[in-house]
């Protein structure tokens, strides 16, 4: 994580502040449940269940966590609050898929340019996340090309262009309504010709149950491979941190269409808890790489699962 040390201190504060609400609700509930009790009983587990459900962890995942804790309670006989918190933390950490690298490290290992395709449903914050990512790469001394392949939504191209200006990276675009695959092709071609390090392709938001639109993503991907056979090197699925259980279906359908390699969870600076990501990361074995914590270009942080769970549970 040291690579992004230029903002780590500030950002840690933002994360703590953003997740503070989360901490209050989950941790205070569990604490309240355990107060005055010397051991974990059914009531404590019921309260824990409630706390997890209230954080969007979801029924299946919650039941799994509870089951494992119940088993350990049965095995160990006696368990106090501190022990319960420790075990809970560990159980959740275990569910989050391993993530040892970040995009920046990856760019050094693969050939040039390193292609990242960004996908997700409408309004999750794809374009904003791309702006922030570009800023991070740029700060690290990489040359970045952005591809405005959201040719559908009104002013999406302009939005990305403004980010391009802010961060000072070129944006490859065509007219609104143009074929997104063609924009992706152009972007990668010109990045390659200019020996750029990184290409980030923005795509239009699409609901995962629209079959045609999902096919379009596969097509964009295929066309990329005409320029660079190994592209895209990463497919980043952006999830809105306030989304509930539907995020599962999003992960499932986007994975089916494009083989997602990483997740970014946005809007975690609000009161939303993003608990759904625990189950998703576990089920699909996809690591969470980034979390979005605001609208400024510095407001993107590498996901650190220990820190995440720590912040989540206090």
């Amino acid at each position, binding site marked *: 994580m040291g690579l992004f040390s230029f903002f780590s201190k500030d950002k840690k504060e933002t994360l703590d502040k953003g997740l503070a609400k989360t901490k209050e609700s989950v941790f205070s509930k569990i604490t309240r449940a355990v107060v005055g009790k010397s051991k974990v009983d059914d009531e404590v587990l019921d309260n824990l269940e409630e706390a997890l459900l209230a954080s969007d962890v979801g029924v299946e995942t919650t039941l799994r966590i509870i089951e494992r804790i119940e088993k350990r309670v049965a095995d160990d006989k006696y368990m106090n609050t501190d022990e319960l918190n420790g075990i809970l933390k560990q159980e959740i950490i275990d569910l989050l898929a391993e993530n040892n690298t970040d995009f920046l490290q990856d760019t050094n290992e693969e050939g040039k340019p390193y292609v990242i395709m960004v996908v997700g449903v409408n309004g999750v914050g794809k*374009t904003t996340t791309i702006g922030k990512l570009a800023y991070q790469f740029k700060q690290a001394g990489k040359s970045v090309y952005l591809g405005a392949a959201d040719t559908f939504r009104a002013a999406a191209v302009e939005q990305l262009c403004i980010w391009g200006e802010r961060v000072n990276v070129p944006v490859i675009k065509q007219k609104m309504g143009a074929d997104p695959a063609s924009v992706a092709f152009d972007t990668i071609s010109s990045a390659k010709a200019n020996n750029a390090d990184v290409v980030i392709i923005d795509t239009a938001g699409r609901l995962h149950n629209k079959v045609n639109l999902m096919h379009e993503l596969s097509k964009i991907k295929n066309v990329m491979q005409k320029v660079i056979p190994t592209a895209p090197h990463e497919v980043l699925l952006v999830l809105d941190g306030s*989304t509930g259980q539907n995020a599962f279906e999003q992960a499932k359908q986007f994975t089916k269409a494009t083989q997602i390699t990483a997740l970014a969870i946005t809007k975690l600076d609000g*009161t939303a808890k993003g608990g759904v990501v625990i189950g998703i990361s576990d089920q699909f074995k996809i690591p969470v790489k980034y979390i979005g914590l605001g609208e400024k270009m510095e407001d993107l942080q590498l996901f650190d699962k220990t820190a995440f769970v720590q912040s989540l549970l206090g």
Partner: protein
Amino acid sequence: MFENLSERLERSFKILKGQGKITEINVAETLKDVRKALLDADVNYKIAKTFTDTVKEKALGMNVLTAIKPNELMVKIVRDELALLMGGTSVDINTKGSPAVILMSGLQGSGKTTFSGKLAKMLKSKKGKNPLLAACDVYRPAAIEQLKVLGEQIGVPVYSEIENKNPIQIAQNAIAFAKKNGHDLLIIDTAGRLAIDEQMMNEIAAIKQAIQPQEILFVVDSMTGQDAVNTAKEFNDRLDFTGVVLTKLDGDTRGGAALSIRSVVDKPIKFVGTGEKMEAIDQFHPERMADRILGMGDIVSLVEKAQEQYDEEEARRVAKKIAKNQFDFNDFMGQIQQIKKMGNLKDLAAMIPGMGKAMKDVDIKDDAFKGIEAMIQSMTPAERENPQLLNGTRKMRIANGSGTSIQEVNKLIKQFDGIRKMMRMVQRNGNKFPKLK
């Protein structure tokens, strides 16, 4: 992993099937499943609990009435309760005032700008309003541009001040502009904001204070999870909004957040957004929504949609042609265009009662008509008017021209003949068919 609510309920009701009456014991398992289903649907956990308690109470109370099967009774209770939870009858939007001012509010990415465009279009065409849109999102890159593009699409002017970073001033100026230019309706788009962002919440409260809008709509993504109640409550405490808009309902989310919000803030859900097209806006009808959640289909919406897009003039013309047995490929093409205007085929099919579940895994392409259209377009005007002309060579030319095969052309002609025959039959027996209304 997750079944939708109706599937889940269907299954849990099956457990009850064959039981003589509802008892504490046999209802327990069902209620547990109902609660799980509600949680999977993102209904707030507290509300899910209250809901199942109420259902249980009612179910046990009806113990004696064993005239109908217990599972049917349970369906009725769950359905009635759901509809009740979502707010009884539908509430219309207040457009009285000169101009009537509608202020949009909500989190980032909930769909405020898109919805502003849809609302303007709808009130323009359905209520004959002369709307003005105001772009008060001065923060997000290209937000103003987005509203302008939408305004152009729907033929509604957009008031904006590119250099001005003060949304309160812009809103006030927009009202003055509307008055001066005879707009009787003003829709104010605002920036997305988090409920805990003190500064931004103060800003929108100040906008409200300054312009005293007739309606304040809280726009919320229907995929929102447990946090929906917190956000809705916070916005309501600050703005005392007048209605809720539920967006992105064309996804496969069950929209449990809707139930939660409705019961926490006691404000009506006035509209739903069902797609990216500017026509994809609907009134919210609690009973229909409850039916839809329970997999009972939404035939009323389907019929309404059909009526809306139905061109009566065209229908009369076609009917005349059918009577004379002159229905040709041009008319066929016209009919296809009418259906296409109604929107996404899968959405339409899913509204047919009983089809929701069946449609889930069926892949209906929006371009299902593409091949047919290509074939008809490859016909000469004479062929379109006189399908009898179509012989082997002509068919071959059409197949080549449309990139299809001769088999497909034959199939189309066969289908067309079938439709023609059926239409004649329907016309002759016209009165025997049940009316839709």
